[in-house]
């Protein structure tokens, strides 16, 4: 297990500050990082090392909390504590802020693009989740303001192929939303975590959702459609979500991020105990009651809390992580023999 996660390199991405989040572009060639220094940095490889190709510094007045690439790879969205979301357009190595989305009452905690590229979701400490639509002229309009959560909303993520949105909150729940006529509605609430849910990740098929929490567990939820074979009850035409697996006892502090590799199915976690862990589903586990094994546990991956883990979308096993220590680290994961 010791060798399953190997350090490839580190960069001081946001010196004297925290690095909050990372996002690989869809091509897997660039990594965007953002931090407490209000900047976004774009990293690319040059030979064996990672170098900073661009710095986006004029966009925000406060911490940049999350960044997200559009499915086409030409745009980057950044969510900031200054209550705005910037949309940057990529022109080779240059990024230009083309729009600033305003409206949230306070800190924007997350931003995510829908697989179609036409929709964007943001969420905030103001307890709301907003859905935005982009038109052909790069104009953004608010399509819906969802007030389902009762506390700060920490993260939003879209289903890999459907227009289904998931949000995680300080109110200990995960909520799912879909479009209904000319508005968006909350179609499911996932309860089970005993504390703040910090992050979410769908599996490659979109049938399962992983959530991680301040309660030090990772939960795996499965979608059951109406009329499912397993006899899971659904209300009306909406699918039901059931918690089919809980990973507890592995993390000693809050789990801030979870990432599900779309290529290998490996699940990585970022923890407040400065460690990175990787889990893999056991080969013969029952799909309705899967079991996951810990396949990598790297203590002191960083010198402080690990805030984010991100799998490269094209290169299997390439993982990036970032921390309160301001650094970004690159890792090579190999599933250990016999596990």
């Amino acid at each position, binding site marked *: 297990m010791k060798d399953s996660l190997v350090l490839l390199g580190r960069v001081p991405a946001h010196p004297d500050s925290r690095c909050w989040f990372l996002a690989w572009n869809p091509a897997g060639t660039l990594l965007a990082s953002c931090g407490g220094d209000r900047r976004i940095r774009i990293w690319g490889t040059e030979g064996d090392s990672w170098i900073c190709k661009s710095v986006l510094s004029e966009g925000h007045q406060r911490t940049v909390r999350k960044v997200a690439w559009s499915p086409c790879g030409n745009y980057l969205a950044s969510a900031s504590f200054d209550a705005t979301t910037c949309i940057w357009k990529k022109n080779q190595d240059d990024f230009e802020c083309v729009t600033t989305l*305003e*409206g949230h*009452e*306070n*800190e924007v905690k997350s931003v995510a693009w829908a697989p179609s590229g036409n929709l964007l979701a943001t969420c905030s*400490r*103001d307890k*709301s989740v907003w859905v935005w*639509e982009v038109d052909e002229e790069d104009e953004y*309009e*608010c*399509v*819906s*303001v969802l*007030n389902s959560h009762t506390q*700060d909303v920490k993260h939003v993520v879209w289903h890999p192929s459907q227009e289904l949105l998931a949000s995680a909150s300080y109110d200990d729940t995960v909520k799912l939303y879909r479009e209904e006529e*000319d*508005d968006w509605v909350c179609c499911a609430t996932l309860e089970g975590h005993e504390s703040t849910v910090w992050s979410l990740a769908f599996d490659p098929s979109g049938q399962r959702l992983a959530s991680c929490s301040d309660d030090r567990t990772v939960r795996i939820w499965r979608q059951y459609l109406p009329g499912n074979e397993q006899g899971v009850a659904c209300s009306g035409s909406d699918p039901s979500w059931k918690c089919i697996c809980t990973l507890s006892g592995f993390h000693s502090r809050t789990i801030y991020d979870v990432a599900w590799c779309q290529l290998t199915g490996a699940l990585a976690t970022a923890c407040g105990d400065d460690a990175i862990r990787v889990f893999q589903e056991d080969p013969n586990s029952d799909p309705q009651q899967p079991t996951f094994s810990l396949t990598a546990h790297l203590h002191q991956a960083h010198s402080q809390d690990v805030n984010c883990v991100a799998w490269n979308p094209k290169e299997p096993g390439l993982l990036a992580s970032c921390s309160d220590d301001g650094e970004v680290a690159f890792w090579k994961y190999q599933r250990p023999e016999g596990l």
Partner: protein
Amino acid sequence: MASPFSGALQLTDLDDFIGPSQECIKPVKVEKRPGSGVAKIRIEDDGSYFQVNQDGGTRRLEKAKVSLNDCLACSGCITSAETVLITQQSHEELKKVLDANKMAAPSQQRLVVVSVSPQSRASLAARFQMNPTDTARKLTSFFKKIGVHFVFDTAFSRHFSLLESQREFVRRFRGQADCRQALPLLASACPGWICYAEKTHGSFILPHISTARSPQQVMGSLVKDFFAQQQRLTPDKIYHVTVMPCYDKKLEASRPDFFNQEHQTRDVDCVLTTGEVFRLLEEEDVSLPDLEPAPLDSLCSGASAEEPTSHRGGGSGGYLEHVFRHAARELFGIHVAEVTYKPLRNKDFQEVTLEKEGQVLLHFAMAYGFRNIQNLVQRLKRGRCPYHYVEVMACPSGCLNGGGQLQAPDRPSRELLQHVERLYGMVRAEAPEDAPGVQELYTHWLQGTDSECAGRLLHTQYHAVEKASTGLGIRW
């Protein structure tokens, strides 16, 4: 408790985090007495505080109070004062006033006037399966039974709101060359929208908002000025209650601009939601359909009201429709028979255009609900708002769907709303220009349509609220 206020208000600075109420900076007026020296404070068994002077004399100390008005007028902290807002204006308060009247000597009694909105009436009509006329008559009967003296319909005061809005638009349209901020003109009848605009966008958006008072507040002027004079009473001797489809109207009634300093009285003393009237009926053990219908009261003797009247253009007052048709006539000499609405991205965002020979003369819109208000405001900020006038309402589907309307747990809400809309639309529409009593009031009460009186009694102002940037506000 889930917030009963409109979506636009919920997302403004009302935060349930109580801690920062330490930030309360309301200055408590303390009478400075000469030579008081050092005093001790003694707390009695009943919790009252007495100041004990050095010479042994005692003085009962007044409790420091933060009133509803103080909270609303100030932006010093971010405590949500919802419970304060709701308890100070409730059917309990109305009952107290009515009970006090029963015990008081004739000279101490207050004249109690209730003004009912057409939207609340439609909601009650749906609930009790009655038509609007019967509902109006039986509500009048009910209120009088419990001690109310007069029951009016805010459709009457709405004539003034619409006429003032129409005139204001034409004035601004004509004055476009001189004033960049003249257009678009945004409707002002919705307090949820006004509060949001004042707290979030401040001085940028306020010049665009119509200064015409809402029907509730025009009624406030009518009752506390015109009617008071007629009854030979000072305004503070009248207790004016309005029945409204939402809670945001309680905030509107509490605005300092609608407080009469001279007589220390509010133009509207208490706002009851439709739901609160329903609770009142239950508590008084009255079945509305079983009451004998009473004749309807009217503010002017000339207009004998056999049945209530309303306005065309939807359940939120018809601002877009009235301003549009009036502008078409006044500015271009075009008579518009039917107004055609074109829905845009959702049913709460629709536009109306006046075209002639391929040219767009007027471009109006209605924007209901927070998401549409957002988009409108953002477009305005970027200078990309194509509209001349926008009817803005905080609630999706407008006032008939306000947060204070009656719910029916056994009916799908969409079906209930459609029923309420049908009942609302059943009432005969009247053009404000033709409504009996209105022109007379402009002449005799206001001394003319563009008089100083009309400006003072039919218009209002807005105030940008500065956001208090508190250190306590920073949270991860």
